[in-house]
Structure formats: C-alpha cells, structure tokens
C-alpha cells in the first residue's frame, strides 16, 4: 500500500514546478508554450484534490481546466490571426 503522503507531496511538487515553469520557464515568450505549462500545475492540483477525496471537485476541475485551456488557445489563435504582437 502506497503512502497517502506520496500523492500529496507529488502534487505539491508538480504545482510549484508547473507554476514556476509557467512564470519563468524556457520558451514562455510563446503564449502556447505558457498555456501548455499550466497543465503541469493543473495535474498537481488534481493530485491534491485526490488526496483530500474531493471527488465532485476533482471531476468538475478536470472539466473546467479543459474548458479554460480551450478558451486560452482560442484567444491566442484569434489574436494571432488579427495580427497583434504576442
């Protein structure tokens, strides 16, 4: 049986690394890279919810984070098509 703390601290490490990667990671001048880096932090938050048994919150969070990624990618693509400097 794996220790419960493993999941929690893996989640903590993923959240902090993911948010650092989003803020100052390599290649974040490109907004698409930045958006994809937020997914690492999102997986970490999912693991933390899993440790706390927040089932409904976890399911809703997975759906919401997918929709947020879609909204951000749509904004990036539309702004690029308009020709705004990103």
């Amino acid at each position, binding site marked *: 049986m794996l220790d419960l703390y493993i999941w929690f601290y893996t989640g903590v490490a993923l959240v902090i690394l993911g*948010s650092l990667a989003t803020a100052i990671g390599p290649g974040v001048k490109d*907004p698409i890279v930045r958006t994809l880096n937020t997914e690492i932090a999102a997986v970490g938050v999912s693991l933390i919810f899993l440790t706390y048994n927040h089932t409904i919150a976890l399911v809703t969070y997975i759906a919401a984070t997918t929709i947020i990624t879609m909204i951000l990618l749509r904004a990036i693509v539309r702004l690029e098509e308009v020709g705004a400097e990103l």
Partner: protein
Amino acid sequence: MSASVLVPNVVSPIVVSLYIPAIFTGLIVGLIGLLGISYQKNDLNALILTDIVGLGMLILVAAVGTDLAEALILPGLVVELAEILAISEILMSREIRKKGKNVDLIPLPVSLDMEVLTTAPTFMAVILIAYGAFLSGFTGGAIAGAGILFYVLSKSARGVPSDIWEGIAGASGIAWCLWLVGFLVFFVFPQFWLLALFLAAFGVFIKVAYKAGLIGVIGREEFKKE
C-alpha cells in the same frame, strides 16, 4: 499548531497534518503567479498567469479538507472560468477594433462543415438537458448547460435571434431567487425541508444551465443577428 485553533473532531488527523503544507503551497503558488504578472508587459501572458493564481486559491480552499471545501471549490471554478472567458473576450475585441480586421468566432484549422452539426444538435441538446434535469443540482446544471452551449454553437453559423439572450438572462435571475427562497424555507419552516431541497436543487440547476447565457450575451454582437 497552537491550541487556540479549534479543530472539530470530525476532521481526520491526516487532513489536520496536511493543513500547514497545503496552505504554504497555495501561498507560494499564488505568489509565483502574482510576481509573474507584475513582470509581464503582454496582456495575454498576464491572463494565462491569472490561471496560476487561481490554482493557488483552489489549493488554499482544498486545505480545509471537509465537505465545506468541496462546496466552496465548485463556485470558485465557475468564477475562474467566467473571469478568464470575460477577460479574453475583452482582449480580443480590443485588438480586433484596433486593427479593424475581422476573424472567425472560433478559428479552426479544419472546416467543421459536418453533417452531424446540421442534423443532430436538437436531439443531442434534448438528451443532455433531460439528463441534466434528472440529475438536478450543480452537476445537472453543468450537463444541461453543455447541451445548450452545443446547440447554440452549432446553430451560430445560421444566426441566433438576439432577444433570446435577454429572456435567458431573466430566467436565470428568477432561478437564482428560487434558490434563495429554498434556503430561506430551510431556516424559517424546517418542516417543509423537502420543498426547500427541491427549490434549491432546481433553482441552482436552472441557474448553472443558463450560465451558457453569459457566453451568449458576450457573443451577441458577434453572432449574426436574425
């Protein structure tokens, strides 16, 4: 931890032992996000970083570790979603106005001119809304809202009548009142708890389902009007 903090007995010891690390993780993540925003000159990159600040907020709420946390995470998610949607719409419309160029509402690399999108939307939307009404509450509202959104987006090529959205916004407000009345009945007339439960469940169902109306109101200027 000092003894001055009152922890109820129902909270499991493992949640109590994880409380301090979780709070600090949330604070660190929020701080990283805010520092990133403060060094950012580009609006779009700042918008992506607000997502990270939202994650910090979610961890702070989750650290409570009881049903209360679960009940607080759901509205937090909806608020974060609405906020990112609204700000991205503002950014896009500002740039479009500045450049004076028009682009598709949803730019896609492939053409979505599929048979399914012209024949199936009504059927799919009816099934999703009926299943959402059966579930009721927050989850049902989300499913029914997905049905409404799917219907609207697949019809958007043909044009959505603009005054429907005012009606949807009004119905959403009435549903919100139903939800509040349900809560009031819980406290004032506890013997009618079943009525109160159903008022609250279906009020929040209609309210969440018509969150799609938010997207509709934003897109009203961009959809072709009939």
